[in-house]
């Protein structure tokens, strides 16, 4: 144990995920059975206006046809940045309509809101603040199904929820294994209508989850397997998904990739890219996927610049080339060049996405102004992800990454 470094199998790791995953064509149709298995017959659907307007809720409602399950209520007004006010409002509807389970349909915001509603209902409270932070929840939650309509966040398999509290001006972070849904359903019908730019940004979000999980400090063989498989799926499908959004095979592949990336990073954790991206989103309201896409190569270059302090991270970035660029590129590249080529491979993908749909590749293109960089760097130091960085990150380091990405 003493002085041990560069081990292939970590001397210790933990992996947890209890979510049943249902993926494929007409996968939604299995939800009524799965709910009945959990003793639920009256679910409430939580979604947002965009999902409802795209007609996606109809697929979910139709899937209950011919069964004895009744949909207690549909809440389709979840805002982009959900708050405790919205959560309490939904909980009131849930109670009034005597619902017994929750189905979240949407991206990160709808899923996080549904997780918040589950806390409020289960703990029988109207004050989410009391449960903020890690491991503050103790009671088993109501049956919870998640149907993602984006392929990026991986929220369907993560144990985190972020909900704003406008009164106290804080973003409340909740972390508990109890927040995991019982079931995640991936049905290609739910992601085909996603616009190209959102497809690109969410896809790069998932790719960033894979990369940070693969090179992270809690890296382990199980997470590596998920991250590697997800990177291969994204590498092979993201461009087609942006070009030909109606292709259901490609959409299903991307949805699976995002889920596997979620499984990987929720156990391996993330690092400087996510810490700075969270802060960029918080300060300048840059969508998380775009912030990750912009910052990922610069975060990797930061680690390479500190290779003397963490040689293992450099080795991991070298190995990344196999998954980011494919086996042919990997064997053709001399070992000494692999780390730099890994970064270049990621830049090739984001560059192509920029040409196809205008995905920003610099912070200045994403609406960040230079005067905000210091505030972002300061905020990043308080992000939990920074403690999982393989090297110590100072204010100057975070600012350096931001300036390079600007």
């Amino acid at each position, binding site marked *: *144990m003493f002085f041990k470094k560069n081990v292939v199998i970590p001397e210790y790791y933990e992996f947890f995920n209890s979510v049943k995953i249902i993926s494929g064509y007409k996968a939604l149709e299995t939800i009524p059975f799965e709910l009945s298995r959990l003793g639920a017959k009256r679910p409430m659907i939580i979604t947002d206006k965009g999902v409802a307007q795209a007609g996606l809720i109809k697929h979910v409602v139709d899937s209950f046809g011919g069964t004895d399950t009744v949909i207690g209520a549909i809440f389709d007004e979840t805002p982009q940045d959900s708050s405790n006010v919205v959560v309490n409002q939904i909980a009131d509807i849930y109670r009034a309509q005597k619902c017994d389970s929750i189905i979240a349909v949407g991206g990160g915001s709808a899923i996080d809101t549904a997780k918040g509603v589950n806390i409020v209902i289960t703990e029988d409270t109207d004050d989410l603040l009391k449960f903020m932070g890690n491991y503050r929840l103790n009671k088993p939650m109501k049956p919870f199904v998640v149907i993602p309509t984006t392929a990026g966040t991986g929220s369907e398999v993560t144990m985190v929820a972020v909900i704003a509290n406008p009164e106290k001006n804080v973003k409340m972070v909740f972390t508990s294994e109890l927040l995991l849904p019982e079931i995640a359903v991936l049905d290609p019908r739910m992601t085909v209508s996603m616009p190209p730019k959102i497809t690109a940004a969410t896809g790069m979000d998932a790719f960033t989850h894979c990369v940070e999980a693969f090179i992270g400090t809690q890296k382990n063989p199980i997470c590596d397997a998920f991250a590697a498989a997800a990177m291969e799926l994204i590498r092979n499908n993201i461009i087609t998904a942006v070009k030909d959004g109606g292709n259901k095979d490609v959409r299903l592949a991307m949805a699976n990739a995002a889920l596997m990336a979620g499984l990987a990073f929720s156990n391996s954790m993330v690092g400087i890219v996510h810490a700075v991206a969270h802060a960029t989103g918080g300060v300048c309201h840059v969508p998380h996927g775009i912030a990750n896409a912009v910052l990922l190569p610069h975060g990797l270059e930061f680690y390479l610049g500190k290779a003397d302090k963490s040689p293992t991270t450099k080795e991991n970035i070298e190995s990344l080339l196999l998954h980011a660029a494919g086996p042919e590129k990997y064997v053709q590249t001399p070992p000494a060049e692999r780390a730099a080529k890994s970064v270049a491979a990621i830049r090739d993908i984001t560059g192509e996405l920029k040409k196809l749909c205008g995905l920003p590749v610099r912070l200045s293109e994403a609406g960040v102004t230079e005067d905000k960089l210091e505030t972002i760097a300061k905020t990043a130091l308080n992000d939990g992800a920074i403690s999982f960085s393989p090297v110590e990150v100072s204010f100057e380091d975070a600012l350096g990454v931001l300036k390079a990405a600007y």
Partner: protein
Amino acid sequence: MKSVSDYKEIIPKKKWFSTLVTRIFFFFIGIGMQTAYRIDPEVKKEVDSWPETFSFRMAVVGGPSMLMLKKGGAFQYLGEKEVFYADVEMWWKNITFAYLVMTGRISVPNAVYHNRQFVRGSLIYTMSIIRVINVVQTLLLPNFIARFYIKEVPKLTVKKLVNRAITYFNVGYGAIK
């Protein structure tokens, strides 16, 4: 075949040495944090950014613990005081894990990466507390040992040496008291 009455309750042996070492380490960290608040501007800035009344507990599941309380402009070590709630709680999952860390056989960052400990409470304050503990460790430990506990050990300065001497004095005084 054994009868039901042959099956006896098994009480695992107490790990008294690991518990003692951990308890001593908690005492050092506690007094160290209390002292660092008075003498280290970095620590003072961090602690002052916390709410007016704020408690932090470091504990081992089923084992020893330490409690720090910020109240009325002071940051106090309250020893092994049992509390129902602390704003941030840092738990070691087992006394063996705590012991391995306290004796430098697993670094603190590695213990975090391995999930051998967990935090209950706000992550933002946790990050701040980790920064405070890092400074306290550089005050308590010589640099060649501190590198087992923190990711990056700051350069040794005269000011650091003076502060270290004050911390040692306070720990010694606290132990006698």
